Structures are given as C-alpha cells and as structure tokens.
C-alpha cells in the first residue's frame, strides 16, 4: 500500500467522525472537552462560529454526527453530541463581548437575502461583520424561517430563537417585511448579490376522494403547524389522524395531543423502520400515547354531508419487483375505516418558485428546481446564489447553515472580483498533547458509562401546555458524565516510522487490537490479516512506509479509542497523540486569494 498522506487535511478530519459528518464541520470533541471543563462560554462560541444556532440546534438538530460517532461502534450508543451542544447554550453567561461587532466601516457592497430562515441568516452573519450591507426579506414579521414557524414550541422555545436570531440581526443586518413576488423586481433593486433562502414552503397534497368535500377538517401539516405557531389555531378535534411518517407528521401528532386531540393516530404507508422521522422522534411520539400504524394507504376521506367522519385505508405489504425495486401491493384483506374528527396531511414538502420569471436565463428541472452549482451555490445568473431548502429541496437546519457558509464565501469572492470556483482550503493544526511520561493535556481515561438520558418534563404537565418544553436538558453533573463518554477522536495517533524500533509494545497494549506490523500487501488482502480484521471499509487504514525489518505499520482507524496507550508504551515516541484542529474557511480574508 501507499503510505498514508497525513498532510491531506481530509485524512485526520475523517478520523474525527462527528466533525466529518457534521455538514458545518463543527469541532465537536473540542467543545465537548470545554463542557467537561465547565467552560460553557467557550464551548458555545466554538459552536456559534461553526453552526450559528447552538441553542436551537442543541434541541432540534437532525444530528448526522451521532450515527457517525465512534462511540456507537465501540459500544452501543453514540455520545449525546446534540444535547451537549444545548448544555453549552443553557449554561453560558453573557457572551455579547465575544461576538463580532457590527462593521464600523462599510465596504460599499449590498446583499439581499430572500427569506429569513437559517440559510439566509448564516449568509448575513458571515457577511455583515465584513462590512457588507445585508438586507433580509421575509413575508413574516419575524426572522427564523421554519425554525420559528414549523418547529413546535414544546421542542424549541421562542426565547431561544429570539436570542440566537437576535445575535445575527444585531450585527447591523436589516430585516425587511416583504412578500417577494418577482425576481426581476429584486434584481432591479441594485444589490450586488442576491441570496435565495426561501426554503421549501409548500406542503404536498393528497388528492383522494372526499378531499374537496371534507376540506374543512383536512389540513396541510406545515400550514397547520405555522398557524399553531402564530396562535391562529388553538384547538383540534378529539380524534385526529396524521398521515405521513416524517418529521412534520411527528410534530403534527404531538401538537394535536396538546390542543385537544385525545385519540391521535399516525398512519404510515410503509413500515415503521422505513419512516423518515428520526428514531428519537418516533420514541417521543409513542411515549405520548400516540400509536403509529403501518402498511396502510389512504384511499378515501369519508364524510357526512361535508363533515369529515374518517379515512378508509387499504392494507398493503412490500414486495420486490424483478428489478429489485420495492413496491407496495394490496394484501387483499378488507379495508380499514378509521373514524376521526380532523386529518393532518404530512406527506411531503415541495419547493415553489412561482415568483422567479422564466425569462431571466435560469433553467429549471422537471421538479421546478433551478440549476445551482453544488459547491459554489451560484445559479446561472452570476450574482444570484441559492442555499438551504431552496437549493436542493427540503433538508434541515444544519444543512441550511452549511449552505449559507459556502454561499457567503462565494458571495464574498464574487463581490471582490475573484473566481468563486477556487475554494479555500480549511485551516488545520496538529499539536502534540504530551505533558509527561504518562500525562496528556486531555483525559485519556476511557469512561465505561452508557449514554445518559436527557430528563423530560412529566407527560401530564407537558401535554397540557403546547409551549412547555418537554426536554429539560442535562444538568451540569449529567453533562459532565456524558461529556466524559467522548473519545477525543481529534487527538490523533500520529506515527513516525523513523523512530520506530519495532518493539511491538504498541501492538500488545492496544485494547482494540488496532495496530499490526506485517509485510506489505494490497489493501483488500491486508485488511484480512491484521491483528484484528478490519471489516469496516468506510474507515481508513493508516499505513507507514517500510520499516527496517521490511514490514509496514498498519493501524485500523475504525475502533481506536484515542486512549493514547500506544503512545504511552512506545519507548521512542514513534507514536504521539496530537490534537487535530480543523476550521472550515468562512467568508473574509481567509477565503480570498492572497495574490
């Protein structure tokens, strides 16, 4: 095998599984250590720089980092990365002094952000301190987008949104209330660049018999949720059916339970495991006494002279056709008629750009999505950029933030007359953590604890008030214990073959049998003859050049605990534990060419 090129920033970055998986590449282990040290302000600021909404995300993030977390491979459950983020937000002090100040001198460039969701707010946050004049437009009077209009308050209190959206607006960003009806008009307003962050605002319809007749009691999930958020809807029938298995369905059913729904049922076309909602969302819904019924396809809304009476479902099962594609076919059993007073339709979300004129030079695909570059977020109109749900369809907050950062880099480069396609490399740093023979700057004693549960408000109380936050968050003691479960994957094992005397001490001590000294071979074959087989192909092998005995050192990164025992046992310092820090480059000096 070719010796590993550790100079490539991706190599050590991939070892930090959580950071690699985080769309915004938040330096997770760094903030978790700061939480363990009680340095909540610093932990918050690391998050704020990377993901802009730590308090919001610490409650609502889709957390792609957690399925990736190494701890989940070493034992059963990943570190509660997301809820630790909330800890930083909950226990921080006044951080105003740590935030950037509004620019005192403007650079003369004006940027329009359309929509005030997380994508636009990220663009605004990144650009305003650099001297850009940023105007954010939204049809709603408040900023926050779907974070404010869709996510129920029992998951995300208004105060948290106000605070974190406020930090952005306080940078001198103007919020202007306006329903955008013409792209031409926006382009004519003299902005140097326009960022489209209008989200995916349309809920998918369910056109089955009875839809029109019983319309009064059939609601589109996302429209209903925003009405609930703004207080326009305050009640619902006693018996509610929620159609759909995604996040929206979960928020609809739990909101219904709080607004008078006594018997609330979620009905899904496919199986439980295939539902789009996250496992914890399903758990929370079931925990509130909401059954989830599977393999039922809605066939008809029944009504009594226009008054909804229920929904008829056809029972189906999954089969595979000749090409291996999955198909739902009727089982032939009798249909099921479930009675109800109201139905919430949460079967999907769509983009809609009726306000972008078709003669502007932008091409749209058959789903009505404009052509947008996946790296630069630039559209076919050079000064128009897209991001968030508006770019490639509905995703989530952290992706909207990640898009916002990249789009801000593009806008900055564009306004400075640079090539937006030349992307800046991240800033990396690798520093030894050794302080003594058996002393490291980090706590390398591996905690055996299993994942701690976040305390919840008692269901009797939580179900009475739609604004009462269900999760109470970790207290400082639980937070410390959970933080100790983190394996510090950013403290990398770094091998220097020139120093190795092939004493085998590292092989013998490694608790996970990660290290092997063996004759060279090609990767597939080598993976089979290591101290322990390296079956996880998504994880790299770290290999050295040939050592004096002609063997090479091979380390399987997969299950390394970052305990540092190899480095403690190495007589020559051939292994060292070095902290890898990677900060993605954001808009500003760092992203501009140095020429």
């Amino acid at each position, binding site marked *: 095998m070719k010796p590993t090129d550790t100079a490539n920033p991706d190599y050590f970055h991939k070892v930090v599984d959580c950071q690699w998986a985080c769309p915004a590449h938040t330096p997770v282990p760094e903030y978790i250590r700061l939480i363990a040290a009680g340095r909540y302000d610093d932990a918050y600021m690391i998050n704020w720089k990377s993901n802009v909404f730590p308090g919001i995300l610490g409650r609502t993030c889709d957390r792609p980092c957690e399925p990736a977390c190494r701890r989940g*491979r*070493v*034992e059963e459950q990943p570190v509660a990365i997301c809820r630790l983020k909330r800890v930083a937000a909950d226990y921080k002090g006044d951080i105003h002094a740590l935030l950037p100040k509004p620019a005192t001198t403007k650079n003369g460039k004006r940027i329009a952000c359309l929509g005030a969701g997380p994508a636009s707010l990220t663009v605004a946050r990144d650009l305003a301190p650099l001297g850009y004049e940023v105007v954010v437009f939204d049809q709603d009077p408040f900023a926050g987008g779907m974070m404010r209009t869709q996510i129920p308050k029992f998951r995300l209190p208004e105060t948290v949104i106000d605070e974190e959206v406020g930090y952005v607006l306080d940078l001198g960003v103007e919020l202007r209330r306006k329903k955008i009806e013409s792209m031409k008009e926006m382009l004519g307003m003299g902005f140097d660049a326009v960022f489209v962050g209008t989200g995916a605002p349309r809920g998918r319809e369910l056109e089955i018999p009875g839809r029109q007749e019983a319309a009064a009691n059939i609601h589109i999930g996302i429209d209903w949720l925003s009405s609930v958020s703004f207080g326009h809807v305050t009640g619902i029938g006693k018996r509610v059916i929620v159609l759909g298995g995604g996040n929206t369905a979960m928020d609809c059913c739990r909101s219904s339970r709080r607004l008078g729904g006594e018997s609330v049922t979620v009905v899904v076309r496919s199986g439980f495991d295939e539902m789009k909602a996250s496992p914890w969302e399903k758990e929370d819904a079931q925990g509130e006494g909401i059954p989830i019924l599977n393999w039922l396809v809605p066939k008809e809304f029944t009504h009594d002279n226009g008054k909804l009476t229920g929904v008829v479902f056809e029972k189906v099962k999954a089969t595979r056709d000749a090409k291996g594609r999955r198909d739902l076919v009727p089982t032939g059993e009798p249909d099921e008629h479930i009675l109800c007073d109201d139905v919430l339709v949460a079967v999907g979300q769509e983009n809609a750009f009726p306000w972008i004129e078709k003669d502007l030079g932008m091409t749209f695909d058959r789903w009505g999505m404009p052509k947008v570059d996946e790296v630069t977020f630039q559209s076919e109109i050079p000064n128009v950029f897209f991001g968030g749900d508006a770019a490639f369809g509905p995703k989530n907050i952290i992706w909207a933030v990640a898009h916002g950062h990249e789009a801000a880099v593009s806008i900055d480069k564009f306004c400075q007359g640079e090539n937006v396609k030349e992307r800046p490399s991240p800033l990396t740093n690798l520093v030894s953590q050794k302080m*003594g*023979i*058996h*002393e490291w700057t980090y706590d*390398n*004693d*591996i905690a*055996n604890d299993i994942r701690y549960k976040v305390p919840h408000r008692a269901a009797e109380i939580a179900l009475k008030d739609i604004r009462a936050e269900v999760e109470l968050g970790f207290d400082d003691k639980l937070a410390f214990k959970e933080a100790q479960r983190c394996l510090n994957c950013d403290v990398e094992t770094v091998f220097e073959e020139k120093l190795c*005397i*092939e*004493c*085998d*001490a590292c*092989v*013998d*001590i490694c*608790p*996970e*049998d990660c290290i092997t000294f063996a004759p060279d071979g090609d990767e597939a074959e080598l993976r089979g003859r290591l101290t*322990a*087989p390296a*079956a996880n192909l998504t994880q790299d092998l770290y290999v050295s050049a040939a050592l*004096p*005995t002609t063997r090479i050192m091979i380390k399987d990164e997969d*299950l390394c*605990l970052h*305990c540092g*025992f190899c480095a*403690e*046992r*190495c*007589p*020559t310092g051939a292994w060292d534990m070095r902290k890898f820090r990677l900060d993605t480059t954001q808009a500003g000096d760092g992203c501009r060419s140095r020429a």
Partner: protein
Amino acid sequence: MSYLAKPKFHHPAIEVNQLGFTHRDYEGAISTLCAGCGHDSISAAIIHACFELSIPPHRVAKMSGIGCSSKTPTYFLGQSHGFNTVHGRMPSVLTGANLANRDLIYLGVSGDGDSASIGIGQFVHAIRRGVNMVYIVENNGVYGLTKGQFSATADQGSKSKKGVANPDSPIDMVALAIQLGATYVGRSFSGDKSQLVPLIKGAFEHRGAAFIDCISPCVAFNNHAGSTKSFDYVRAHNAALNTLDVITGRAPITADYEPGETQTVKLHDGGMIRLRKLDATHDVTDRAAALAAIHRHQSQGEIVTGLLYADEDSGDLHDRLGTVDRPLNRLGDADLCPGVEALERVNAALR
C-alpha cells in the same frame, strides 16, 4: 505519573477460545515496566499462548523471583495463582508447589540475574529433577531492576551503557539446561512473537522440565550500540533453526508441508509439534546435535533460536518419585495415616 487501567472495551470481532474467553481475559494489571521493554512482549506472548491453548486461567500457578522480569506475572493471567519468591528462589518454591499439587500448570518466570546469577544453584536442581513446568528466563543480560549491572548471561565484550566492556564469559542457559536434562529447550526473541508464541505453547503441552531462554532487550539499560542484547543486534544475528506449529490433540491438523522439510515431535496428550526446518540438518530430538548447533552458531557470532531440543519420551519428578496420581495436598488423614496395623506391618517388614 498516572498508570491508568487498560480500557475495558475491546474489538467487537474479537476471537474467543474453547472456554469462551478472549485474549483480553488472560491479561493482568497494567504493566509498570519501561515503555518498550521486551519483558512486556513476552507477557503478551504468554497471554496469546494460554488463550490459544484454552488454558483455564485458574489452573495456572505463576511463580517468579525478583527483578523486572519476575514482576511480570502481575501483568498477565490476572485470574491465576501467583507467588513472588525471594531473589533466585523461585525454582525451589515451584518444585515444592508442584510436589504438593501436581494438578496445576506451573509457569516459572525469571530473569537472567534471578536464574543465572543469584539463583543458579536453584535453577540447576529444578531442571535436573525434571519438574513438570514451563520455565522462562527473560534474558536481557543485565539486572534491569537495579539499573543495569551486567548479569551472568552478558556476553564477554558486550558494552554497558557507559561503554565499559564485560570481562567475564557468559553462562549459556540453553546449553546448561540441555546438559542438566531438560526435556524441552528453546530460545527465542521477545521481538519475534511468531516464533515465541508457538514455542511457549509447545512448552505448556510438554510434560517435564521445559525451558525457554528468551532474549528480551532492556530499553533503558541494554539497547545501545555495542550491546549484544539490543533489538538491532539480535535481529542482525538471529539464526533460527525452525519455525513451529503446535497441534494439540484437540485441534485438527491443517498445516501442509513438503516432506523432508518438516519434523514432527509427539506431545504427551496425543498432539504434536510440526517443525518447519530452516536448518535441514538439525534434528531436535538429538541432544548432542542440539549442543553442537548451539556451539557452532555461537562461534560464528550468531544467536541460535527456535526449538533446540525436545525429548518425546520425557517424564517428570512425580514419575521418578512414584507419587500417587492424586495431588498430595488432597490426601486426607485416612490416606496419610493408615493406622496402627499398617504401621505394625511396615515395622515388621523392616525387622
């Protein structure tokens, strides 16, 4: 300084042996020896040998004397019996224990100082009595624990860390063991587990006095240029006679070699050792040839390693003494005191 316990987590695909144990179950407390010490590699080799043989840890008695090497039993087989004797006295204590309870598996771990210097008198008698044991000398040529004085196995001319040459001639432990009647004798190197692990396994399966001299570089006091016990020196002068596969009576035979290249040594329990000969002329069952090979390689400046000598028809101390099969420590009053009548009969026979 902190010495943390080794993390409990292990590889999810970790192998288990016939007893359902993983190799991690054969570990002991965390080692406090210097990082990189050859002794730790030998501990790891013992762990792997016991794991692979599915030895029940609670049936093993680890005996040792004084020295860094003699400390190591703390670092492996944490579930086994153990005894640290005074310096150099392990062989006698082991002999006594073996006499009292012949059912345990005896593992003597010692150093070159412990066995060749202060304990040489003890060593020779345990070997010549044929005590059923595995006796490993972790040979670094120095007294590691007392900071690196030459031991009795240090080669003449080998230099100390400060550059002083050793004036005395060395004791060759393997030659001595063969002369004393050991029935399984090998030499190995802590840096070569592929040779050492099977050699230890063969020793465990052997009945009688099995002796292994394992060169084990002391990284703190004897791993410099000019030393003949350093990693570099041993690697450069290692003359291996053979590699071996230990096939227990319980496991199927899989290795497949060309005839003539291999030699088979029968083991007590019906298993065997398959030797792959690197030196085609060497017959491991020939004592004289073994001694000759040791001297020949030594005169060429080489360190001969591998299984040097094995006696297929070996016996042990208990065979020689004709003791009962039941361990002496399990004999009750009734067995030991057969009564006045029996005494009368014995006395009458002697009149």
